[in-house]
């Protein structure tokens, strides 16, 4: 197996997804030899500050070759620097993908992906891979955002939903004004809503990703309130 290497990568494109969220595409150098899985994260640092590193989940999937995409929210030092300053042609150092937040694409499983805000990033990778491979694994993203302006990858998730009969994308808004025309669900992610989405709990595998509070909240919901076992939940804490 090739030895893992930290390499400098050029930003091939930088796209604003929302007012405070940006996707950067990092181009692999020639002969970059990497093996990785959907759901892993890379660790980045700027050439001028090699000691300051931060991890970002891949929002692209393992079938996307030639580049990595990460989607970053303007938050904290690294998050702000990337969202406000990273542009096409800049370069960042990239520590190869690692992590165990991996989708179990078994045919009978139902992956329930619980996300709040920017925690949805790896689930785009999950849904892309399942859809492109035409997998029978059921995949449901339950996504909590403040308002309809905060939905990351809305268009792509809806497209994937139309292409993949086993994929569902469900959004709930927590801070919409009463007058807002949104006809979808409102309020937090709670047990009744989860139960509505899952017909056979024994085959469900829960994933929760993002800021620690959301991830721990989901853990409590799934383990304490719904009584599922530890091996039915995978967590990726960001902070």
């Amino acid at each position, binding site marked *: 197996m090739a030895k893992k290497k*930290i390499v400098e990568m050029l930003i091939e494109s930088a796209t604003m997804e929302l007012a405070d969220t940006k996707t950067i595409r990092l181009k692999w150098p020639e002969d970059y030899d990497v093996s990785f899985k959907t759901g892993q994260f890379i*660790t980045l640092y700027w050439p001028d500050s090699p*000691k300051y*590193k*931060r*991890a970002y989940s891949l929002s692209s999937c393992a079938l996307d070759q030639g580049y990595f995409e990460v989607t970053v929210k303007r938050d904290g030092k690294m998050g702000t620097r990337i969202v406000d300053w990273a542009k096409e042609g800049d370069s960042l150092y990239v*520590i190869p993908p*690692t992590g165990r937040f991996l989708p179990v694409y078994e045919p009978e499983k139902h992956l329930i992906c619980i996300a709040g805000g920017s925690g949805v990033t790896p689930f785009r990778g999950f849904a892309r891979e399942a859809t492109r491979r035409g997998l029978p694994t059921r995949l449901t993203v339950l996504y909590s955002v403040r308002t309809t302006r905060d939905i990351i990858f809305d268009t792509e998730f809806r497209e994937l939903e139309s292409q993949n009969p086993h994929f569902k994308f469900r959004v709930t808004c927590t801070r919409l004004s009463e007058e807002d025309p949104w006809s979808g669900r409102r309020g937090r992610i709670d047990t009744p809503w989860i139960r509505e989405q899952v017909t056979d709990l024994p085959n469900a595998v829960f994933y929760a990703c993002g800021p620690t509070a959301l991830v721990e909240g989901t853990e409590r919901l799934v383990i304490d309130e719904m009584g599922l076992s530890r091996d039915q939940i995978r967590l990726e804490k960001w902070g």
Partner: protein
Amino acid sequence: MSANIPNELRYAKSHEWIRIDESVATVGISDHAQAELTELVFVELPEVGREVEQEEACAVVESVKTASDIYAPLSGTIVAVNEPVAENAGLVNDEPYKGGWLFEIKISDPDELSGLLTAEQYLESISG
């Protein structure tokens, strides 16, 4: 302090542990160090055959937040490195004293051994 600090090992102030087997020392980082560093994502190991001086930086561990040099706790020659951690740095987090060892040194100056910390002294150095 809940860190696991096995009694049978020796330690350096810079958080390496050392297991002595005749003239060969196996080196890794302590449970305390891996916990402070948080999730490790990359380990750069020295070349086998490299001569190192005591306290010379000879490996690097990178976490999701920072990077840290690893120092040779004893002078000598690197005679083995733990390739699996170069593939999966998380081993150092999971098993700092077992599967997460980093390298082995053939000791050139046995007098240096007496300067290493005992488990008790190491515990004291991190409790400060």
